[in-house]
C-alpha cells in the first residue's frame, strides 16, 4: 500500500469513532476522504483558501471530466485506474519522513551515490535533516531577493493565486483549457500545487529557475500545475524535476504545464523525470500522464522543451508548441528510456499558425528489457502559415530482443509553401561497438552508458550544464542490467 494511504488509513482506524462524524472531522485531520466528488473539489479549494472564481473554475472542470472518457489511443496498456479508490488531498504533515539516512532504503542511497549527489542533498531529497532544509530555505530566500529586484515573480501557484490573482486569472487555462483532455481536465479540478513564474518585459532572468529553490517543492503532489509567463523581450530557463529517484507513493500523476511567450520572449523548459518505474516485473511504478503546452503568442518568440524521461511505469506526455506569432520558433528535444516493463508514449505537437514559423523535433527513444517506446508527434501547418518549416528526427535504439520501438509521426499540411522534413532511424547497440569499448577497458555497463550517451548527445547538449552531467549518469543507471 502506498505510504500516504497507509498513514491516512492508520489515522482513520485509530480514530474509528471520529470517522463516522463525516466530513468536518476530516478537515481537521488534514486529509480528504478517499474518492472524487464535488465535495472533494470544494474541500481542496477551501483548504487552500481560494477565491470563489477559482472554485468555480475547478467545479466546471470537474463537471466536464465526468462526461469524458479516458483516452485509449496511446500505445500503452495498464489496468484501469480506479479514480474513486485514490486520495486527492493529503497534507504534507501526514507524510512519514525518515529521521536520518539510516532509515532510507539502501537501494535508493546506492543510486544517489552513483549519481554523485552530495550527502546534504540526499538528505534534502528525503525530507530529512533540519539543517539541510534550513540551508535550502536560506538559499531560496536569497535567490528570491535577487529575482524580486528584477520584478520576477517565482512562487508556488497557490501563493500566486493570493498575491497575483489577476495574472493567474488571465492565464490559467489559457493554453491548456480545462476540457482539453481527460487528464488535464482532472488536473484542473483537483490540482494541488505547482510553480508560478512571471518574467516582466525585457528582463533576462539572471539564473536558471529550478523547483529546487522553491520551498516545499518536494511536496507539490500528484496533480501539479505550473504556469510560466514571459512578457515581451524576456528570457527564462526553467528546470523541472531532479535526477534523483523520486519515490512518490501516489501512483497516478497528472500534471499540467502552461507556457506563454510574448513578442521576442524565450522560454526554455528542461525536465528530467525519474519517478519510480516499478520493479523488473512491472509491479508498482508511477503512471505519468502529463499535458505540457506552450503558446508562442508573440512575434519571434521561442519555446524550447528538453526532456529526459527515464522513470515512471507509464509515460504519456507530449510537450507542444502553438506557434501563433510570426517568425516564432518551437523546439522539442527528447530522450525517453524504457527498461524492464516500462512503457512510454511521448512526443510533441507543433502547430504552425503564424508566418515563417519554425519547429525542430529531435527524439531519441531507447528501449531495453521488455520496454515499449513510442514516439507520437503531430506537425500541423495552417493555411496562413506561409514559409513554415519543420525538421523532425526520430531515432530509436534497441537493447536486447524483447523490447519495442514505434514511431507515429502525423503531418497535416495545409500550406503550399511549407517545408517539412522527417528523418527516422532504428538501430541496435552493435556487438562490435560493445567489444570495442570493452577491449579498451570499459566494463559492459560503462560501454552501454557511453554508447547510449553518444546516441542522445544532440538532446543532452540542450540541457543546462548542471543538469546534463547528472542526466548522463542517469541514462547509464537506468539501463543497468539491460545487457548481457
Amino acid at each position: 500500500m502506498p505510504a500516504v494511504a497507509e498513514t491516512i488509513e492508520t489515522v482513520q482506524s485509530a480514530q474509528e469513532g471520529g470517522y463516522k462524524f463525516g466530513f468536518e472531522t476530516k478537515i481537521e485531520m488534514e486529509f480528504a476522504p478517499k474518492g472524487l466528488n464535488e465535495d472533494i473539489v470544494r474541500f481542496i479549494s477551501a483548504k487552500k483558501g481560494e477565491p470563489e472564481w477559482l472554485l468555480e473554475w475547478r467545479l466546471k472542470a470537474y463537471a466536464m471530466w465526468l462526461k469524458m472518457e479516458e483516452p485509449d489511443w496511446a500505445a500503452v496498456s495498464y489496468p484501469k485506474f480506479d479514480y474513486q479508490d485514490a486520495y486527492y488531498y493529503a497534507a504534507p504533515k501526514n507524510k512519514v519522513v525518515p529521521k536520518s539516512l539510516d532509515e532510507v532504503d539502501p537501494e535508493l542511497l546506492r543510486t544517489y551515490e552513483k549519481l554523485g549527489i552530495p550527502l546534504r542533498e540526499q538528505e534534502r531529497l528525503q525530507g530529512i535533516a533540519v539543517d539541510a532544509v534550513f540551508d535550502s530555505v536560506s538559499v531560496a530566500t536569497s535567490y528570491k531577493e535577487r529575482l524580486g529586484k528584477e520584478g520576477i515573480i517565482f512562487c508556488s501557484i497557490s501563493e500566486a493565486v493570493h498575491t497575483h490573482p489577476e495574472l493567474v486569472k488571465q492565464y490559467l487555462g489559457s493554453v491548456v483549457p480545462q476540457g482539453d483532455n481527460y487528464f488535464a481536465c482532472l488536473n484542473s479540478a483537483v490540482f494541488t500545487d505547482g510553480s508560478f513564474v512571471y518574467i516582466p518585459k525585457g528582463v533576462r532572468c539572471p539564473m536558471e529557475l529550478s523547483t529546487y529553490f522553491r520551498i516545499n517543492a518536494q511536496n507539490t503532489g500528484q496533480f501539479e500545475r505550473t504556469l510560466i509567463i514571459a512578457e515581451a523581450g524576456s528570457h527564462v530557463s526553467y528546470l523541472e524535476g531532479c535526477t534523483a529517484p523520486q519515490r512518490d507513493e501516489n501512483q497516478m500523476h497528472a500534471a499540467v504545464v502552461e507556457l506563454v511567450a510574448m513578442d521576442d520572449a524565450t522560454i526554455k523548459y528542461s525536465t528530467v523525470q525519474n519517478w519510480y518505474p516499478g520493479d523488473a516485473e512491472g509491479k508498482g511504478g508511477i503512471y505519468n500522464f502529463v499535458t505540457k503546452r506552450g503558446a508562442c503568442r508573440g512575434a519571434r518568440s521561442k519555446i524550447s522543451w528538453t526532456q529526459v524521461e527515464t522513470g515512471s511505469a507509464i509515460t504519456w506526455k507530449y510537450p507542444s508548441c502553438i506557434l501563433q506569432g510570426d517568425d516564432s520558433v518551437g523546439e522539442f528535444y527528447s530522450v525517453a528510456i524504457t527498461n524492464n516493463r516500462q512503457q512510454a508514449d511521448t512526443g510533441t505537437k507543433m502547430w504552425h499558425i503564424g508566418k515563417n514559423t519554425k519547429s525542430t523535433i529531435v527524439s531519441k527513444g531507447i528501449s531495453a528489457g521488455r520496454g515499449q517506446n513510442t514516439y507520437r508527434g503531430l506537425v500541423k501547418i495552417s493555411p496562413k502559415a506561409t514559409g513554415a518549416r519543420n525538421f523532425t528526427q526520430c531515432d530509436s535504439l534497441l537493447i536486447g530482443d524483447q523490447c519495442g520501438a514505434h514511431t507515429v509521426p502525423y503531418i497535416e499540411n495545409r500550406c503550399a509553401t511549407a517545408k517539412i522534413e522527417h528523418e527516422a532511424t532504428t538501430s541496435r547497440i552493435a556487438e562490435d561497438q560493445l567489444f570495442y569499448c570493452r577491449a579498451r577497458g570499459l566494463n559492459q555497463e560503462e560501454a552501454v552508458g557511453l554508447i547510449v550517451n553518444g546516441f542522445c548527445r544532440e538532446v543532452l547538449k540542450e540541457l543546462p550544464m548542471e543538469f546534463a552531467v547528472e542526466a548522463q549518469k542517469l541514462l547509464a543507471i537506468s539501463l543497468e542490467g539491460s545487457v548481457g
Partner: protein
Amino acid sequence: MLKIENLTAEIDGKQILKGITLEVPAGEVHAIMGPNGSGKSTLSYVLSGREGYEITGGSATFNGIDLLAMEPEERAAAGVFLAFQYPVELPGVGNANFLRTALNALRRARGEAEVDAMQFLKLSRAKIKALQMSEDMLKRNVNVGFSGGEKKRNEVLQMALLEPKLAILDETDSGLDIDALKIVADGVNAMRGPDFSALVITHYQRLLDHITPDRVHVLMGGRIVKTGGPELALELEAEGYAKVAA
C-alpha cells in the same frame, strides 16, 4: 610475456585454430604472417576475448595469468591492447571522452588515481604531437567519418595513450598509404622497450620494413607452420606462402 600452448578454437562449430603454440618474450616484437583465412584475426580476437569464439583446448597466459579466463576489460587492465583491423564507429561519442574514459577505467582497475580533464588534455596533446597527428582527432566522434588511414592512426593514438604491455596489431597496415604506414610504424617503434611486446599480424612484408620484428611466424590452416628471423618475411614476399611453408 605471452605464452600460447596448443591453442584450439572454433566458431560456429568450425575449427579455425588447430593447435597454436607461440611465445613472445617481454621486450620482443613478433610478426604473424599468413594468407587469408589462415586464422590470423581469430587468434587476435581469441586473445582479446571477443564473444562467439569457443576455445576447445590449449592455453594462453600473459605473465603467468590465464588470459582466456578473463573478460575483455580485465585483459585490457592487465595490459593487453588490440588494434582493430576494422575500428568501430561510436556516433556521438567524442574521441577525447572515449579515450579518457578508457584510460581512467584502466587506471581504476589497476588501483591508480584517475586523470582529470586538464591532465588528460595535456597528456593527449603530448602524445598527438609525438605521433605527428592533428589535435582535431580528439574533437571528432570516435572513428565517425574517419578515412581508413585516420581510423588506423586513431588506433595507434589509443595505444600510445593506454600504454599496453602487449599490443596485438591486427592487419593495422591494411588500407594505409605509405605516410600513414610510417606513422603507425613509428608509433609502435616508439613504444618498444623491455616492458613492451607486440604481435604484429599482417599479410604483407611492407609494414615489417618499418617495424623490424624479432621473430616471424607463418600461420597457415590454423597452425604455425614456420618460424624464423626477419629474413623470413622477405622470403615469403619473394616466394609466396605455399612454397615457403612447404
